[in-house]
């Protein structure tokens, strides 16, 4: 897929090191493989609209950024609920397919690699039911 992951919180890089060395390495072999960035004061989080100034922390914001630096999608959760990584991967795969098609293709809801891809255009108007089965989403 060729995706770079970057994480960010208001913790210092020293705390990142301690967390990686003392906890993450016990859960994931080799520890965190990507850069764990520090955003003391929440300046970057504020730029992205996910900094909670009352709590002084960033919420669980996740942004998919394409090779042109354009934000294609984001999701923001409050602290107690963790994300679904496989959904993020699915979305990146869908955005990559659309980009490779130079915008000529679109992925219907619940699309996964190998499933039906749509080619929006005048010939598809009112004909989606002919080429795409709603039940595909559950498969």
């Amino acid at each position, binding site marked *: 897929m060729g995706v770079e992951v970057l994480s960010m919180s208001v913790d210092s890089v020293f705390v990142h090191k301690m967390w990686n060395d003392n906890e993450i390495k016990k859960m994931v072999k080799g520890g965190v*493989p990507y850069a*764990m*960035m520090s955003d003391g004061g929440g*300046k970057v989080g504020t730029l*992205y609209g996910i900094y909670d100034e009352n709590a002084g922390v960033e919420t669980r914001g*996740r942004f998919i950024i394409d090779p042109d*630096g354009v934000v294609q999608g984001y999701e923001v959760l409050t602290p107690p609920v963790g994300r679904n990584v496989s959904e993020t991967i699915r979305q990146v795969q869908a955005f990559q397919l659309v980009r490779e098609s130079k915008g000529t293709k679109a992925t219907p809801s619940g699309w996964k690699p190998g499933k039906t891809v749509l080619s929006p255009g005048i010939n598809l108007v009112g004909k989606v039911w002919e080429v795409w089965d709603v039940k595909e989403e559950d498969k």
Partner: protein
Amino acid sequence: MAEEFKPGCARPTGGPVGEKPKKEVEKEIVIVKKETGMIKVGQKAPDFTAPAFHKDKFVNVKLSDYLGKWVVLCFYPGDFTFV
């Protein structure tokens, strides 16, 4: 006496006790809030630099150095926040 608290998934923080901030300060906060909405999809991700811990080294990361690649940028409340 200090009261024991149960740590949750948000990083525990405190705040000033008693005196309320002056009205002027409140005004300033309102202005800041106006300028910090959610960014929009389909628009450029704001560029930034930040210190980072990566592969046993401390490095400076610049988002625009990743142009030409897909990037997933994840924010979270804090290290050791359980989920």
